[in-house]
C-alpha cells in the first residue's frame, strides 16, 4: 500500500490547490451573484468541471514527454490559431474571426488553449539550449521560431492574444538564459518596429478613400481610437469611443472601500457597463466589492503567480522551469492588461481576466495551466518522509 501522506506530499502543492480553489470559488460566486442572468453561470461551471477533469489528466501525465512531441505540437498549434480562418469551422463575431464551431460544445476560442501549447513549444525550444543563449545566431533563431504563433494569431486578427504571446516569449527568453544585451535589443527593436508600423500607416494610407471610415493598412481605426481614448482617458468623447472607459472608472471609483454589495452595483446592474461578464468583469467587481474585494482578487493573483514561480524554482528540469515561467507571464500580462484597462492604466484590448471572465475556452485553459503546474511540481526531486524514516520515491 502506498503511504497516503507520502503520496499527497509528493503530488499535491497545498498552496497552489488552495489558491486555485479560492480563485475558482471567487469567480463562481461572483459570476453568479454579480453578473447574473443569461445562463452564463451554468455554462461557466460546466467549463470549470471540464477544466478540473482535464487538469487531473494533465497532472498525472508526465510533462517531460512533451519535449519529444515538438513537431506535432507545433503543427497542431498553428492549426488551432488559423482554424477560425478555415471556412467551415470559422465563426466571426463583430469583425474578428476568433472562434470555431465545435459540434456538441458550441463555439470555442482556439487561441486560448493555444496559449498553453505555445508556452510548452517555446519551453521545448528554449530548453534545448540548456538555460544559456549566448550567441546571436541562436537567439535570432529562437526568436524567429517563437514569432510563428504570433503571426498565426494575427491572421484572425487578435492583437490581445498576440501580445500575450510576445510577453510570454520575452519572459521565457529571459529565464531561458538569453544575454541581457540580446533582450534589450529585442525589446528596443520591437518598440521601434511597432512605432514604425504606426507612423508608416498613418501617413501613407489614403483614409479618404473609404470616406474617412476606412481601416488603416495594418492598424485598424478602432485601434487608433482606443489608443486615443487611453491617452486622453476618454475625456474628449465620453458618449462615443470613451464611453466604456468612463463608465468603468465610474463603476470602480464609486465602489469605494467596501463596494455597493454583490448584485447592487448601479453601474453594473443598470447596463452602464457593457461586456460586464467578460472584458469588464473587474469593473463590476470593483463596484460591488470595493477596494477590499479588488485587493483580495489581486492578492490571489499575486499568490498564484508566486506559487507558480516557486514551482519553477523547484523543478530540476529547465523545461519545467520555462513552462512555469511562461504561464506566470501569461497570467501576469492578462491581469495587468485587463484590470489596467478598466482603470485607464492600459489601452483597451479585449483580453479575459483569468479565472474571472466568463468564457469556456479561457477557464478550461487556465485550469489546465494549473494542471501543468501540478504536473511539474509532482516531478520535482522529492525527499518523501515515512513513518520509518526518509526515502526517495520516484514515479515515472
Amino acid at each position, binding site marked *: 500500500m502506498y503511504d497516503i501522506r507520502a503520496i499527497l506530499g509528493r503530488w499535491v502543492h497545498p498552496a497552489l490547490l488552495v489558491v486555485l480553489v479560492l480563485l475558482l470559488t471567487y469567480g463562481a460566486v461572483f459570476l453568479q451573484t454579480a453578473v447574473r442572468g443569461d445562463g452564463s453561470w451554468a455554462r461557466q461551471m460546466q467549463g470549470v468541471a471540464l477544466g478540473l477533469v482535464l487538469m487531473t489528466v494533465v497532472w498525472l501525465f508526465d510533462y517531460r514527454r512533451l519535449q519529444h512531441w515538438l513537431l506535432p505540437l507545433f503543427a497542431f498549434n498553428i492549426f488551432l490559431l488559423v482554424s477560425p480562418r478555415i471556412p467551415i469551422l470559422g465563426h466571426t463575431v463583430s469583425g474578428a474571426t476568433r472562434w470555431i464551431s465545435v459540434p456538441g460544445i458550441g463555439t470555442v476560442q482556439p487561441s486560448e488553449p493555444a496559449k498553453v501549447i505555445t508556452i510548452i513549444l517555446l519551453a521545448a525550444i528554449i530548453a534545448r539550449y540548456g*538555460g544559456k543563449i549566448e550567441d546571436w545566431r541562436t537567439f535570432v533563431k529562437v526568436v524567429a521560431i517563437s514569432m510563428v504563433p504570433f503571426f498565426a494569431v494575427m491572421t484572425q486578427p487578435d492583437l490581445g492574444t498576440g501580445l500575450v504571446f510576445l510577453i510570454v516569449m520575452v519572459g521565457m527568453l529571459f*529565464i531561458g538564459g538569453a544575454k541581457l544585451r540580446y533582450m534589450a535589443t529585442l525589446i528596443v527593436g520591437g518598440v521601434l518596429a511597432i512605432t514604425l508600423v504606426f507612423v508608416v500607416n498613418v501617413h501613407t494610407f489614403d483614409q479618404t478613400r473609404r470616406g474617412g471610415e476606412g481601416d488603416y493598412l495594418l492598424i485598424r481605426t478602432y485601434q487608433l481610437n482606443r489608443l486615443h481614448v487611453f491617452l486622453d482617458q476618454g475625456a474628449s468623447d465620453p458618449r462615443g469611443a470613451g464611453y466604456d472607459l468612463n463608465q468603468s472608472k465610474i463603476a*470602480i*471609483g464609486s465602489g469605494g472601500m467596501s463596494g455597493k454589495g454583490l448584485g447592487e452595483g448601479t453601474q453594473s446592474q443598470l447596463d*452602464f457597463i457593457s461586456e460586464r461578464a467578460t472584458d469588464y468583469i473587474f469593473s463590476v467587481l470593483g463596484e460591488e466589492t470595493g477596494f477590499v474585494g479588488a*485587493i483580495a482578487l489581486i492578492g490571489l493573483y499575486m499568490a498564484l503567480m508566486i506559487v507558480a514561480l516557486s514551482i519553477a524554482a*523547484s523543478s530540476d528540469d529547465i523545461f519545467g*522551469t520555462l513552462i512555469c515561467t511562461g504561464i*506566470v507571464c501569461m497570467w501576469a500580462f492578462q491581469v495587468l492588461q485587463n*484590470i489596467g484597462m478598466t482603470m485607464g492604466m492600459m489601452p483597451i484590448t479585449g483580453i479575459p481576466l483569468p479565472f474571472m471572465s466568463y468564457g469556456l475556452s479561457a477557464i478550461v485553459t487556465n485550469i489546465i495551466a494549473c494542471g501543468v503546474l501540478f504536473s511539474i511540481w509532482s516531478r520535482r526531486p522529492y525527499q518523501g518522509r515515512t513513518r520509518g524514516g526518509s526515502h526517495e520515491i520516484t514515479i515515472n
Partner: protein
Amino acid sequence: MAGDVSLNRRLLVLGGLVLLIGAALVFRLWTLQIIQFDQFADRADNNLRRIATTTAIRGRIFDRNGVELVTNRSTIAVMAPALRIDNYEQFDRLSEEQQAWVERVGTTLNLSNEEVVNRLTTTREGPLELRLLAIDVPMETVAYIVERSGEFAGVEVEARAVRQYPHGSVAAHVLGYTGNITEAEMGQAAFEGYQASDVVGKTGVERSFEHILQGVRGTRELEVNAQGRLQRVVSETEPTAGQDIYLTLDVNTQMATEQALLDAMSVAQRDGHEDATAASAVVMKVDTGEVLALASYPTYYPEEFIGGIPQDRWAELTDENSNFPLTNRAVSSMYPPASTFKSFMTMAAVDKLGWGPNTTHICTGTWTGFGEQWPWRCWLRTGHGAKNLYEANYNSCDIPFYEAGREFHLRGNDEIQDMARHFGYGSVTGIDLPGEARGRVPDAEWKAFWNRDFPEYRAWVAGDTVNLSIGQGDMLATPLQVAYSHIPIANGGDKWRPQLLHSIRDSRGDVIREVEPELAENQPEVSDRAITIIQNALRMVITDGTGRSAFRGFEVPVSGKTGTAETGRRDPITGLRDQDSHAWFVGYAPANNPQYVAVVMVEHGGGGGAIAAPAARQIFAQLFGLEEEWVTATDASR
C-alpha cells in the same frame, strides 16, 4: 535546475515584476476608490438619477356665482422622441426607415411630414424629453397606435389635463388662453423656476393670475438604466393642484353684454356702417369697482390654443384682415372719448371757472372765440340757440365747451388735464389684465415730446385746448377708463379700483382669500356741487337729450352720456372722412341710487345715441332682470 544561482536570480526578478504589477494595480485602485471616491460616487448617481416632474392640475376659473368658465378635462396626448435633425430641410438625412416612420406617424395623426418633423425638432425641451406630436387624439387612433407599437417605435401615449371652456368664446378676452412656455418667457423673472414643458397662461387672467392657477408640480426621482429605462421610483412628491379663482364677472351679464355688442354691430352694419366690425364694453359695480362684464369683438375661441395653435391659424388670428380678434379692445385699445368727456369739462368749469347750471351760451352753429378767421363749428351746423349748462350737456352742444376751453387756455394751468387725470385718464387703472393701455391726456409737455422731430408743431396752441374740451384731438382713452372715470360720478366721489378677482379657493371650494374692494390711491379732487351738477346733467341726457330715444320707456332710471368720436382718418384724395365715427355710450343706473356703470364702444358704429346707447340699454335690462328687445333709436347727435 534548482540551485542555479543565475536562474534563481532571474526568477526573483520575474517575481519582483509580478509584485510590481500588483502594487501598481493596487495603487491605481486606491486612487480611484479611496481618493477620488466622492467624485465617482457623484457621477454614478448622476448616471442613473433623473428628476421627472408631474404637472399640477391647473386651477379652474369661475364667475362670481361659481359658474365654471374654465375647467380641465383629461385627454390623450401622443408623444415621440426628438428626431436627430434640426429641421425639415434635413429630412433627407434621416434613414429610409425613419422617413417611413415619419410618414406613418403623420398619416395616422393627420399631419404632414413637415408638421411631424417640426414638432419633433423643437429645442425648448431637453434632448431626452419626449416631444408632443398631437393632443386630443381620438380613441380609435390611440388604439391603432398602441396595437402596432412595433410600427410606431418610440411613440408614447400619455393622459393629460387640458383646458376646457364650457361657454366657448364667452369672456375669451378676460380669461385668456394658455400655451407652452416660450424660450423668451423662460428667461423672465416672472417665470423663474418654470420648466420647458410647462403650460402657462398667455393672456387674460390666465396670465395675470398664473401663479395662483399654476400650482406646484410634483417631482419624482427616478432611477434609470443606461438606456434611460425606468428602474424604480426613488422618491415622489405629489403635485399640489393650482388654486381656483372666482372672478367678479357674472356670466349672465357677460353673455348679455356680448350679445348687445353683436346686436349693435349688426344694426350699425344694417344702417350702412359696414366697418362696424369691432366693439367693446365694460360693466362695473359703482360701489366696489368690481367688473361684472368685459367684452371685446371680434373674439376667438381659447380652445383653439390647446396643445399649441397651428401656425397658419395663428397667422390668421393676428392678421389685419381679421381685425385682430386676440386684442382685448376694452383695455388695450384707445379712442377719443368725444362727448363723454364733456362731463369732466363741465366739472372743471364749475369748480375752476365758477360756472353754474344757469351759465348760458348761445350756439349759432359757429364759434369765433379766437377770431373770425378761425371759426369753430358745433356738430349741429344750424345751431342750438341759447343753452344753459344742463342743456349744453344733454344736447351735447359744443359751443359752451369751446368757450370753457378758451377760458382754460387763457388761464394756462392745465386744469382740464388735471380734472381728467383725477378721474383716471392718462394712466392705467391697474385692472388685473395684461396689456392695459394708458390712454393719453395731452398737454404742452406731451406735445413737445410727441412732435420732437417736427419743431413747427411742438407748441401747445389754443386749438389744442379747445379740441380737448370736446374730447377730440389728441385725447385718448380706453373703454375701461371711461367706465372707471364714471364710478365717482355715479357714487358721489369715490374712485374704486377695477376689481376682477373675487376670491381664491382651493379645489374643495373653501375660500383661501376673499378680495376686498379697494379705493384707488388718488381720489378725484372735485366739489360735491360739481358732481351733483353733472349727475343732473347726465340724467337729463337720458330724459331729454341725446340718450332719450334709446332709453324711452325703460323701467329703470338711467343716467348717461352719448359720444361720437371722429376717427380722424380722411380719404387722402377727397378729403372726406373715409370711415364712420366711433359710437360711445357711458351710463349708470338706477339714476337715483346707482349700482352699475356700463360703457359701450362700437368702432365705426356711427352715432353714440343710435348704436351704443341701445346696446347699453340691453345690458341694463339684463342687470335689472328686464325682458327687452333691441330698441331702434334715432339720434344723429355727436
